[in-house]
């Protein structure tokens, strides 16, 4: 009986908590019917549980939510969330996943144009070509004026450029004799020299 009591004592808590298998439940119930010690123990468990539930464990939670939300507000926004918000905003403008596709394409295009060195080179070249075209157009419509001063100035500038070891003059002529055009690889620039207009 003593050994049985010890064994079943371990099951009293789960019995009280309804955490036993049906056959165990039955076993404990039979035992309780004839063991005062276990019945008293179970009654104490029951009362401990009841008293614990009546203990004043109500914590003062006024302003709790606001304090939590303030702390969350101060958290750094994760990069993934920033991206999600951005794409989510675009996505609202378009049906389905089209927004994400469009946003991705725009982001990729911006990256190619602004970030890659290749794109920067292309941008510079196209700008230079555009400038040359403009100058050539202007020259075509302007009267061909050649002055001695202009020639002197040209010769001085060319000599100055030649003194710089890394300045490579690749072209020092044009269809118009008073205009000099050359490339300056060190500065990644095309120089166009024009005489003063009179």
């Amino acid at each position, binding site marked *: 009986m003593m050994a049985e009591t010890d064994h079943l004592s*371990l099951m009293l*808590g*789960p019995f009280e*908590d309804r*955490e036993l298998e049906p056959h165990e439940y039955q076993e404990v119930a039979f035992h309780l019917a004839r063991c005062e010690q276990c019945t*008293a*123990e179970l009654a*104490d*468990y029951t*009362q*401990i*549980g009841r*008293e*614990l*539930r*009546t*203990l*004043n*464990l109500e*914590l*003062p*939670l006024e302003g*709790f*939510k606001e*304090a*939590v*939300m303030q*702390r*969350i*507000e101060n*958290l750094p*926004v994760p990069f*993934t*969330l920033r991206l*999600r*918000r951005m794409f*989510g905003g675009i996505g609202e403008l378009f049906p389905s996943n089209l927004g994400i596709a469009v946003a991705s394409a725009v982001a990729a295009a911006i990256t190619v144009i602004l970030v890659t060195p290749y794109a920067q080179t292309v941008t510079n070249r196209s700008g230079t070509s555009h400038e040359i075209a403009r100058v050539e157009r202007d020259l075509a419509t302007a009267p061909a004026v050649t002055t001695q001063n202009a020639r002197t100035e040209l010769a001085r500038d060319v000599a100055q450029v030649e003194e710089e070891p890394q300045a490579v003059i690749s072209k020092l002529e044009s269809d118009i004799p008073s205009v000099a055009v050359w490339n300056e690889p060190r500065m990644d620039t095309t120089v166009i020299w024009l005489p003063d207009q009179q």
Partner: protein
Amino acid sequence: MRTPSRQAGDEAELIDRARKGDSEAFGVLVERYQRRVANVAFAVVHNQDDAIELAQETFVRAYENLSKFESRSSFSTWLYRIAANLAIDFWRREGRHVVLRGEDAENELQRLPTEKGDSFKAASRKELSGRLSQALEELTPEHRAVILLREVEGLSYDEISEVLQCPRGTVMSRLHYARNRMRGLLKDLGQDEGG
């Protein structure tokens, strides 16, 4: 009337919105679980201020890690687990036993009942409450957490096992120990009265 399945669906939607950065949706979840999370923390540290601070930290951690939450366990169990982990870590780190709340315990102990009784049932409710608080104080945080999660929060053994991340058998043995320990401490009250 809100059914459990409807609340679960509503909860899933709130979690989804919160994951996308909708703090208002997360606020609803905070309101819904703040008391129980605070109680879980209190079950371990047994100090109001620390429990509230830990409960706040629990929600902040939960918000930061919402992407890691999987629906295998319920959201509440996940929250309780964070709270229990934080509280147990805190308790171990601080290594302190907090003072019993209010003037209660000391005063109550000064005024032990004089009438005879063979069980702690004989003690008045106020005295019993004081002794219960003291008895809880004497338990380790693990044992205190188990008995409060079971008796006050009404968690099943499996849920306690998940929250405290220990086997179900450990939950059962801790609960058995905690109950017997409390019973012994409260029995003293009845025997003191008698002696």
